[in-house]
């Protein structure tokens, strides 16, 4: 893809892929250890009536640890260690510009509900990141949200979370 090649010709700085690879593998080992610990607490052996609750998860934990260790070894000491840059700063900025607003959006949903939060989120995303005019952005956001409202609440009768702020409660939705 073209934009990717353009950013490739510039000097790309960032963390090498094998470092991320190793970190992820390490997280998998930790997850395996947690599962092992949890299933041992449940009883990972055989009970009088067959395998206990923790028997199956115990071996899943073992597989997690083994595969994590294998990947960790391949990442750090393997023959073809991947030293390419995992993400450069430009790419990271772009990813975070989607991820962070999305996290804020999820946080806001807890208070003002899915519909209102979605409208704000789409409008602000378009104004700040898409550089659209305010009227266009607000209109698009409203159209999308009203469409969803009809689709979920009216046509398919699936109620969504509305939070503390429910301007249409008098209609029974």
């Amino acid at each position, binding site marked *: 893809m073209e*934009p990717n090649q353009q950013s490739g010709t510039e000097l790309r700085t960032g963390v090498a892929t094998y470092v991320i690879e190793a970190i992820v593998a390490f997280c998998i080992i930790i997850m395996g250890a947690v599962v092992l610990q949890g299933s041992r607490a449940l009883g990972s052996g055989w009970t009088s009536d067959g395998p206990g609750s923790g028997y199956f998860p115990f071996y*899943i934990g073992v597989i997690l640890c083994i595969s994590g260790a294998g990947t960790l070894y391949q990442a750090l000491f393997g023959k073809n260690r991947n030293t390419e840059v995992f993400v450069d700063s430009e790419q990271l900025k772009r990813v975070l510009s*989607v991820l962070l607003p999305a996290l804020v959006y999820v946080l806001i949903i807890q208070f003002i509900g899915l519909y209102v939060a979605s409208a704000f*989120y789409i409008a602000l995303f378009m104004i700040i990141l898409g550089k659209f005019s305010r009227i266009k952005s607000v209109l698009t956001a409203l159209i999308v949200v009203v469409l969803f409202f009809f689709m979920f609440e009216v046509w398919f009768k699936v109620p969504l*979370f509305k939070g503390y702020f429910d301007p249409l409660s008098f209609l029974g939705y």
Partner: protein
Amino acid sequence: MEELNSLFHGFSVILTPMNILLMFVGIILGVLIGVLPGLGGANGVAILLPLTFTMTPVSAIIMLSCIYWGALFGGAITSILFNIPGEPWSVATTFDGYPMAQNGQAGAALTAAFTSSFIGAFVAVVMITFLAPLVARFALKFGPPEFFAVYLLTFCSFVGMGKGSPFKILASMAIGFALAAVGMDTVTGQLRLTFGIPDLMRGFDFLIAVIGLFGIGEILLSMEEGLAFNGKSGKINAKVVLETWKRLPKYWMTSIRSSLIGIWMGITPGGATPASFMSYGLAKKMSKDGAKFGTGKIEGVIAPETAAHAAGTSALLPMLALGIPGSPTAAVLLGGLLIWGLQPGPLLFVEQKDFVWGLIASMYLGNLVGLIVVLTTVPLFASILRIPFSIIAPVIVVICAIGAYTVHNAMLDIWFMMGFGVVGYLFKKLDYPLAPLVLALVLGDKAEDSFRQAMLVSQGEVSIMWSNPLVGGITALALILLLWPLISRVLAKIRPPKKTKFAAEQPVD
């Protein structure tokens, strides 16, 4: 011809105006999902699953399976016109589809893609019609050890047939199993791995995982590439369609071969993506002008599309007959069955005749409707990709959030979905396959149940897995597949293998 009678009964079940309408709605939503980056077959069906909670199971499965067919069709539009595969299984379609569009043959390429998708799906549905009842009848004799052996085979074949590091496949699968274990133990009723957090009692729903891993993860990936769409315009008129159809019968051999590859890869959990690559590779090798592949040969469009659709369709066979899905999307459909109160597995063919044959009949009709819809509305869907990404991205995040919320009406699920999204992004970048994770999350509890039941029967003797030729054969095959990465290494030492050209180009699904 008992199957044909049942099939006609199925047609009589689904041919109501409401169901036909749902079919069209499903196909259009599906193509939309297939065209939009970030939404695909699996997470699209997962997000729209809650919409069907109030429908009858037959209407619900018709709509959902039509969404799936639509997504399969939709992937081809973006690959041919924009050189952007909307779905992983349409990557191979870009090799020859986009050059054809550049040569001004976009209409012919699209017609060829859609028609061969239809043919692939049709062959696979015919196969399902006659084979699925047989498999189900056979599977009625299965006990817990046999079922566990089949589960084992499903998961081991990911290791044996997958591309990339076997450690990563194992890790991805084990994460799925570990997440599936969280919550109430189905046998003893104990709480497992909840670490005292009451919200974890419900466990991790795989629908949340699917929406996060495939939806949010894909959005983050597309954003990283800084997508700018500049596509060819796709005009299709009746003349182009007819002219292309005249050219297609010449390639009947490619169609048949690709359908067979697709069916095989679909029933075994190889999936649509490797099927499309394998079929493209074989077509290139066996065609007279294989050297010209990549410059816009119509055969290079027919081969991957036929195989992808055949695989996508036949992935439903093990789901219907055994209750074991062959792909993430089939897994989501299986989750739907459970929600509608149906027990997937061989008994479905005995107890829920209307449902099963309605579904099979809707596969025939749905693909026909799909072919008509996409041939007539391509320009409309192509224009969707001209909508700037800064509008599409937030809307897709909103759709994912709504989809995650509606599964259990729980706010925590939206957070989990975002978490899965980040994991999906990392895993995609590091070549961890996501399909084993999803299937393990769906099948984890069932696989464990059948294992524990088998152990109860045998008083804890593992040798029950070899107690008769059937279960022993399946178990042995599973173990061979599990150890295949090691075996193939040993074989390679003994005699050097032939180099496969496409190995490097194949992504992990």
